[in-house]
């Protein structure tokens, strides 16, 4: 959506005092059976998790509060590790996809750092190491466009609605939610009040809620205290952290609810779900390996690019609003079938012309396209300007030739370029075998010189030119 449209939506949202959807379809598939949530409170800059709430979303979370998050002993994280491992096991056994809900990307970062710290830690227990590995798998998958494993409540809302606030304020989940709550009379005022306290997986530290400083001080005292006194200090730390990690959890649950209540259909995402599930299942079974070798890096890059292309395509296919925007930029071509050249109905060969009033068309000769909402695919064989300044697209139909409904004169169609991006693992396999020095060597080899012609290249070329 361009800046102007976005702004008008904000203005309307402010006038209506509620969030406005900017999508008519969802970019997130429905929650699978194995769906969990995780919320964390970290120590700022140290990036150590000091409290974590986790569980399934239908009941109150399990909460772990860490009294000494900086210390080397991580046995207090075991319940979380076991939960994560068990969840993963469930999805592996059921051979079904998994979903992890998070309140926002800060939680994802916290989990990724946790992963980095323990997935190769020799002094930690096997369960903790596995937890670290799973965190890395989750965080890595989250970086791939179109992935369906991680659902970030804030990002989902930001991606599907606008509010009457400034975009920068929409990073605050609690603030966005004010625009969904009918009980809130003035969402703008309420949202800005809420922004005073963080919703980013950290403790507040305002004059009226100086919890971060307080916990810091309590920890210091507790270190040198003992007995019942120490217990009392620890109880206070526990109470504060428990309260705020629960707050994060509640925001996540409310954010998910608000998103689901938008009731956006999630059609056309099967391909993305399949890819995502396959990638995650592989990593969960075979372990996480960060890409370092050039071929792995190339694979990773093309996985991301293919993901992006497929996600964009799925969104266009299923979202008329996005298609309307894409038409202005010529990425989608809407028109009417003006001619069908098909010697035998329902059989190949079949060529059609589509006349569109659009002058801006981004299709090129030999592009593979599909007709939105059908199984019909084709290749662009001609692009001509119509007398009225529109465009005539000639297609050679290569799939769905029996779909007469659109393969007949007068039928209204929308053409969109097919998402043919794929990861050429086979080629990358060969690359790995061949180990070309350019990518795998440290020094450039010298090769045997060839006998020169002793003539100027220009002279030779001139001589070789046809008269």
């Amino acid at each position, binding site marked *: 959506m361009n800046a102007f449209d976005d702004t008008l939506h904000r203005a309307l949202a402010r006038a209506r005092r509620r969030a406005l959807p900017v999508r008519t379809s969802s970019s997130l598939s429905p929650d699978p059976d194995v769906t969990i949530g995780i919320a964390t409170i970290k120590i700022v800059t140290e990036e150590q998790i000091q409290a974590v709430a986790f569980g399934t979303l239908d009941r109150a979370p399990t909460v772990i509060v860490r009294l000494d998050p900086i210390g080397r002993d991580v046995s207090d994280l075991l319940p979380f590790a076991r939960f994560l491992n068990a969840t993963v096991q469930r999805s592996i056994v059921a051979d079904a996809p998994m979903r992890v809900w998070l309140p926002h990307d800060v939680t994802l970062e916290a989990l990724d750092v946790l992963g980095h710290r323990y997935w190769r830690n020799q002094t930690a227990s096997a369960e903790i190491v596995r937890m670290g590995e799973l965190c890395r798998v989750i965080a890595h998958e989250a970086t791939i466009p179109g992935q369906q494993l991680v659902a970030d409540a804030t990002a989902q809302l930001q991606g599907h609605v606008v509010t009457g606030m400034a975009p920068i304020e929409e990073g605050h989940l609690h603030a966005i939610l004010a625009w969904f709550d009918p009980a809130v009379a003035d969402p703008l005022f309420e949202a800005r009040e809420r922004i005073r306290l963080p919703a980013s997986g950290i403790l507040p530290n305002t004059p009226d809620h100086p919890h971060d400083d307080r916990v810091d001080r309590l920890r210091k005292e507790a270190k040198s205290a003992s007995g019942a*006194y120490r217990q009392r200090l620890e109880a206070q730390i526990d109470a504060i952290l428990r309260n705020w990690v629960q707050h994060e959890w509640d925001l996540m649950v409310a954010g998910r609810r608000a998103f689901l209540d938008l009731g956006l259909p999630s059609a056309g995402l099967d391909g993305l779900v399949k890819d995502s599930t396959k990638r995650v299942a592989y990593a969960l079974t075979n372990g996480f390996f960060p890409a370092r070798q050039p071929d792995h890096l190339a694979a990773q890059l093309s996985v991301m690019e293919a993901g992006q292309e497929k996600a964009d395509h799925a969104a266009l296919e299923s979202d008329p609003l996005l298609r309307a925007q894409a038409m202005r930029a010529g990425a989608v071509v809407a028109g009417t079938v003006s001619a069908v050249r098909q010697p035998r109905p329902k059989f190949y060969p079949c060529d059609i012309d589509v006349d569109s009033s659009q002058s801006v068309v981004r299709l090129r000769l030999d592009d593979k396209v599909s007709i939105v909402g059908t199984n019909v695919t084709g290749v662009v064989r001609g692009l001509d300007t119509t007398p009225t300044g529109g465009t005539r697209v000639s297609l050679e139909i290569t799939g769905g030739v029996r779909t007469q409904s659109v393969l007949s004169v007068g039928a209204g169609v929308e053409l969109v370029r097919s998402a043919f991006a794929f990861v050429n693992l086979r080629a990358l396999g060969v690359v790995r075998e061949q180990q070309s020095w350019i990518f795998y060597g440290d020094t450039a080899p010298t090769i045997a010189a060839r006998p020169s012609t002793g003539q100027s290249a220009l002279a030779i070329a001139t001589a070789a030119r046809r008269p």
Partner: protein
Amino acid sequence: MDESIDIDRLRSEEAELQRKLDELRATRIALEQKVKPQSRDKARPLRDLVLDLVQDAGAPLNSLLLASVIRPLQGRTIPATRFGTLSNDEAKSFDSSRARPVYLCHCLTHDQGQAVKRFWARSDWPLPERVMGPMTGRILFLQGAAWTINLARLVEAGELVADNPEVLKYVAADQARDAGLSVKRGEFPYEAWLATIADAIDRHIGEDRALRETAAVVLASRLDDRERLFGTRKGLVSLPGSTPSWRSAIE
């Protein structure tokens, strides 16, 4: 109703804290009686203490290292600023009429003869011992680390008494880690550490010493007695903006 509960809670808390305080006091007194020498050291002026430690180390020592060793060794916490005043006091006492047999003084940069205030030495050492060349920082760090590790070794061998041997072990381990040695939790291979550090020192000591000796000759001829101990007096730095005609070079 609620208040009374609170008051009771506070009373019990108070009582317990009192009990803990008494316990603590008792343990401390017991300890102090056990280790007399340190308790005497606790009373000694920091100046004398540093003079002895530096003498014991046989090389200039860094304020930070001194502070972190004195704490477990003597049970004394020295605030960082204390070394600043120590430096001034020493210079003052040098300027006063009453001469002392030995002064605490600083290392000097090899080229300018400026004081390197964080490194402490003794005035009765030959000048080259206190000159800092390009690699001297490394050498002094390694020598200080070796000295610390050796202290911990002696304490463990029962040849030396420390106020808090456990902490001293970890201070030593930190030095080993800073020197880039592999340090495993709870393991203190003093001998191995000392050997590796000795090698590291050998790599640079020759060249460093030569440079320090030549530099010392020049400095000795250039500096007066006071400067030889506390460094050349700083030249003035003119700060910009003093005159309206002044223009910045970046314009």
